């Protein structure tokens, strides 16, 4: 790896060029990488001689499988057992087995549509809130993402720029998203300034149940829409232009072309987007936690916050109950995932 061409003029060599620093950093990194890997060979090659080349596959798989097994697979199985125990101690061996008691506790309810009649009313409030959130957030977002994708797919000036405009909030951390909007929605914030400027009365957006729900949904759409727009845009771009030309020759008008060419061909992508958005929305937590803290009252408390508070944040954590609730949440996600895998298989076969 020689980075300075031999024929480089002497005058150029004498001075340090801006590019040289990049080359220097690169060659230092490459040198370190090579040295490290060659060093590892001293340990790993004898292993290969011991077990044979083909069984080296297990060696390559091992680190990932250990972490995956210990921190994903084992906890998943443990979760089922744990959800059947009660007690205040953390370790499973210190807890008493209670069978389905936690689930019974969660489901002891006079009327499921009214959280007040349930023993564990907070769980059902969170469940209700989550259902409302999922319906409006996913519905609104997918619709907006579709409109935006169709517009971005037109022949517009600076398409790359506009595409990234909608994508930018996706990269922001949920905490930052929550804080940005908390600042804008507060009593003396920008939005109330605009409102009073137009002659209206200032509104305590985050202290009113309905307004808080509305803004939590809108902020979540704002933060995530760009991601789904991008996937839909990729779907739109994979539709061959020939089809539209053929449609035009056959006398299909604009609406018919959208209805009978774009929409059916975009359907698989649309479904994937829908399922991904559903999976994400069911787990809504962080930006809402920062924006409203679940309030006012319990108006924006969702499932993951319930699990977090029941299992960790409350004075006396009820981890068995939190575990049972998370198993139920996992079931919902599993259904969505299976639908997605099934759709994926279907579109692969097509």
């Amino acid at each position, binding site marked *: 790896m020689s980075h300075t061409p031999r024929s480089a003029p002497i005058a150029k060599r004498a001075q340090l060029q801006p590019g040289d620093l990049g080359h220097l950093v690169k060659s230092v990194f490459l040198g370190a990488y090579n040295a490290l890997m060659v060093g590892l060979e001293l340990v790993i090659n004898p292993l290969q001689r011991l077990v044979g080349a083909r069984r080296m596959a297990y060696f390559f*798989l091992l680190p990932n499988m250990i972490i995956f097994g210990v921190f994903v697979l084992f906890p998943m199985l443990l979760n089922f057992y744990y959800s059947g125990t009660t007690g205040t101690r953390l370790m499973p061996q210190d807890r008493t087995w209670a069978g389905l008691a936690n689930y019974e506790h969660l489901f002891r309810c006079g009327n499921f549509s009214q959280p007040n009649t349930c023993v564990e009313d907070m769980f059902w409030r969170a469940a209700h809130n989550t259902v409302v959130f999922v319906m409006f957030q996913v519905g609104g977002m997918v619709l907006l993402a579709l409109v935006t994708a169709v*517009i971005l797919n037109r022949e517009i000036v600076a398409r790359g720029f506009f595409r990234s405009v909608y994508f930018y909030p996706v990269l922001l951390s949920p905490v930052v998203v929550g804080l940005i909007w908390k600042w804008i929605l507060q009593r003396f914030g920008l939005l109330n300034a605009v409102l009073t400027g137009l002659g209206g009365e200032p509104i305590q957006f985050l202290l009113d149940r309905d307004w808080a729900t509305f803004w939590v949904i809108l902020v979540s759409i704002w933060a995530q829409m760009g991601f789904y727009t991008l*996937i839909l845009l990729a779907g739109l771009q994979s539709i061959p232009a020939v089809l539209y030309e053929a449609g035009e020759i056959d006398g299909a008008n604009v609406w018919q072309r959208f209805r009978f060419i774009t929409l059916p061909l975009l359907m698989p992508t649309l479904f994937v987007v829908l399922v991904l958005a559903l999976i994400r929305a069911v787990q809504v937590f962080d930006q809402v936690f920062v924006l409203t803290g679940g309030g006012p009252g319990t108006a924006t408390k969702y499932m993951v916050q319930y699990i977090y508070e029941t299992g960790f944040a409350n004075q006396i954590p009820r981890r068995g109950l939190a575990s049972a609730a998370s198993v139920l949440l996992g079931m919902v996600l599993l259904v969505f995932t299976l639908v997605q895998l099934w759709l994926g298989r279907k579109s692969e076969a097509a």
Partner: protein
Amino acid sequence: MSTLRNFLIRKRGGSRIDITDALTYLYLAVGTLVMFGPVLWVVLSSFKTQAQLVEFPPRLLPYAQETIVVDGYDEPLPLYRVVVDGEERVLAQIRRVGIEAHMIDPENPPADPARPTDAERIRVNINDREPIERLSLALENYTEPLEKFRFATYLKNSVIVTTVATIITLVINSMAAFALSKYRFAGRDAVFVLIIATLMIPISVILVPVFLVITQLNMNNTLWGVIIPGAATPTGVFLLRQYMLTIPDELLESARIDGASEWRIYWQIVLPLARPALAVLAIFSVMWRWNDFLWPLIVLSRSELFTLQVGLNAFQGELQIQWHYVLAMTVLTLLPITAVFAFLQRFITTGIATTGLKG
């Protein structure tokens, strides 16, 4: 309807600017405002002083009042524009009594600052004076939290977590992907199906048992407890495996004939060829880890271990939010991601469009 309908087709004919174009650009302009506006507003606000932040209605840019140092007064005096006897003058305020402000002429200060004569001291109704202001950035919003609070520590922790986690993720996932794409062995398909099946199992579903494992391994309240559990991301294995499948097996075979060991094939042939996929995974890992909140919130309870996100949340959860600090720290937190975005946006957007990674 005719205006709407051209929206719905994939390509418009002709090059004439028509109503649909106007609507398109209107939508895009409004979209740009809605998407960037809030962030921009926070950036502008973060340079305002505490006093300016409570001003309502707020002004766009950060201002500070002009002051002047006058002999005999310890503090710099605030300057006002005042109309006295039909003549506009620039005066400095020495004190305020009720609705009356006592002013002096800085050009012509009183001989005895402690006891100005009635001619030297000009009494003005506070509603008749107008502060003289200039643009000024309250940079102390940025510097003070770094000294007073632990923001430098949070920043350091976030950098450590992000870097170490990304390196570990890249190494172990690329090794696993290499095994799954380039070897035939008993149980390979079972392992792959297992990984795919857990692709969508998020940490929020297994919070309690993972916390238990972490505690048992003495990783509670350590950065390792944040780093390790998410390192074996199924998404990463899947992405890298799909990419490595496209590397021709003949390449590996000929290297074997030349006597290369399996490890050497991995690091000298497969890894360099899988660079595009590794780069996509690296960018995503950086984003995930930098923005991660729920899991660090559970693992870390000692404030010297907080990551930026957890620290920022703790800071904004106080009863009296110190917005001038919170806003500045918010800007600092979104800065690295914005920089990554500015340089790599094309790369990221094509990466998502082709792999469907979650953002």
